[in-house]
C-alpha cells in the first residue's frame, strides 16, 4: 500500500511538471513582431562611481546613500579611513522611462548636485546593438565663502559634466560600457586644474553569482596643459554589487574620495600604486 501511495505521488508530481513544461513551451511559441529590449545590462544606476546606462522607470523613486572613507594607507592613524568619511545623500525620480532627474548633497565642498539622465536608444535582442544614454550634472559648491573670496559671484559656484554613455550587454554575464565625459568648471585653480577636462572612460560588469557582480571602471583624462602642481590621477574604481530584494548595495574601492562626477573625472587625488585608495559603498533603495 505504502509503495502504491509513493508511486502515485511521484506519478502525479512528474505529471504536473511535464504539464508545466508543455504550457511554458506553448507560451514561447507566440512571437511578437516588436523587437525586444535587452534588459538589465547593469543592475545599479551606477557602475561604481560612473553612471551606468540604467535609468529609473517611470514614476519610480530611488533613495541613495553613499560613503567613501578616508585613505586606507594611513592604517590605525585614521582607523583605516573611518575618521574622514565623505557622504552623498539624495534621490532620483523617473519622470518617464527615458528621462530621470536627481538631486544629491555631498559632504565634499558642501556640494549640491543636480542631474538629468536621458535614454536615446535601447539595445534590442537581434536588433539595435547598443544602449545610448546622455547624462548631465551641475554642481553648486556651497562651501565657498565671501570672507575668503571677496569677489565671489554665484556663477563661480557652478561646475558641470556632460556625458555620453554607450553600453552593450555582451552575454548573460558580461556588460561593457564606453563613456565620453567632459568636465567644465566655472571656477578653477590655475596652479593645479584645467578649466575643461575631457575623459574617455570604460566600464564593465561581470556577474559572478546570481545576485553578485564585479564591476570595473577607468577614465583616461586628456591633459592639454602642464600645471605647476599636478596632484591628480586618472580615476580607477573596482566594485562589487550585491543585490538584495529592493536594494542594490555596491562596495567600492577607488582612488577618488569625492563622489560628485566633476571631482571623480577631474580631481582623483588618490594613487593605486601608493595604496592611497578609498573604500566605500553606494546603497540604492527603490520605491
Amino acid at each position, binding site marked *: 500500500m505504502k509503495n502504491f501511495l509513493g508511486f502515485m505521488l511521484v506519478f502525479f508530481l512528474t505529471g504536473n511538471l511535464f504539464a508545466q513544461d508543455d504550457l511554458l513551451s506553448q507560451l514561447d511559441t507566440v512571437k511578437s513582431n516588436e523587437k525586444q529590449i535587452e534588459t538589465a545590462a547593469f543592475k545599479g544606476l551606477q557602475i561604481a562611481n560612473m553612471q551606468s546606462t540604467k535609468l529609473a522607470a517611470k514614476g519610480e523613486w530611488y533613495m541613495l546613500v553613499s560613503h567613501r572613507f578616508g585613505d586606507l594607507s594611513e592604517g590605525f592613524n585614521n582607523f583605516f579611513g573611518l575618521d574622514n568619511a565623505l557622504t552623498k545623500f539624495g534621490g532620483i525620480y523617473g519622470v518617464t522611462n527615458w528621462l530621470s532627474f536627481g538631486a544629491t548633497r555631498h559632504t565634499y565642498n558642501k556640494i549640491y548636485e543636480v542631474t538629468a539622465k536621458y535614454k536615446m536608444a535601447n539595445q534590442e535582442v537581434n536588433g539595435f546593438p547598443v544602449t545610448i544614454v546622455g547624462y548631465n550634472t551641475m554642481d553648486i559648491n556651497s562651501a565657498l565663502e565671501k570672507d575668503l573670496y571677496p569677489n565671489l*559671484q554665484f556663477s563661480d559656484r557652478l561646475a558641470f559634466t556632460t556625458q555620453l554613455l554607450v553600453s552593450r550587454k555582451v552575454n548573460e554575464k558580461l556588460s561593457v560600457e564606453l563613456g565620453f565625459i567632459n568636465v*567644465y568648471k*566655472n571656477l578653477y585653480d590655475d*596652479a593645479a586644474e584645467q578649466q575643461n577636462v575631457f575623459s574617455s572612460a570604460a566600464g564593465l560588469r561581470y556577474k559572478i553569482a546570481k545576485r553578485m557582480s564585479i564591476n570595473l571602471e577607468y577614465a583616461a583624462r586628456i591633459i592639454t596643459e602642464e600645471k*605647476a602642481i599636478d596632484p591628480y590621477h586618472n580615476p580607477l574604481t573596482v566594485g562589487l554589487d550585491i543585490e538584495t530584494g529592493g536594494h542594490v548595495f555596491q562596495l567600492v574601492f577607488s582612488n577618488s574620495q569625492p563622489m560628485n562626477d566633476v571631482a571623480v573625472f577631474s580631481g582623483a*587625488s588618490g594613487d593605486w600604486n601608493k595604496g592611497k585608495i578609498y573604500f566605500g559603498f553606494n546603497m540604492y533603495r527603490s520605491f
Partner: protein
Amino acid sequence: MKKSILLLFTCASFLASCTTRTYEEISETETSASPTYTANIEPIIKTNCVGCHSAGGRLPTLETYDQVKDATQNGDLICRIDQTQSCGNVMPRSGAMPRPTIDMIILWQKEGCKN
C-alpha cells in the same frame, strides 16, 4: 521624444558656457610665482598657525624657518592645510585658507623650501 532630447542637449551646452574665473581672480590674496620663506611664507604662518603652534603649545611648533621646513617636508603640514587631500580636520581650525595661498605653500615646498 527626439525633439526634447535635442532641447536638453542645447540647454546643457548653454549652461556650461558661463564665464570662467580662477581662484586668484575672486580672492584678494597676493601670491608669488617663486615664493621664499621670509617674503611669502612666514607672514602666512604667523597669522594662521603660530597662535596655537608655538613653543609649549600644539605640535609641530612653527616658529622658525627650520621648523616650518621640517613640518612641510617630513610632516603632513601640506596635507593638513589642503582640504582636497584627506588628512582629517583641515587646518587652520577656523577653515581652510584661500586656494592661492595653499597652492603657494605647495609650490614653495616643491621648489625646495627657499629661505
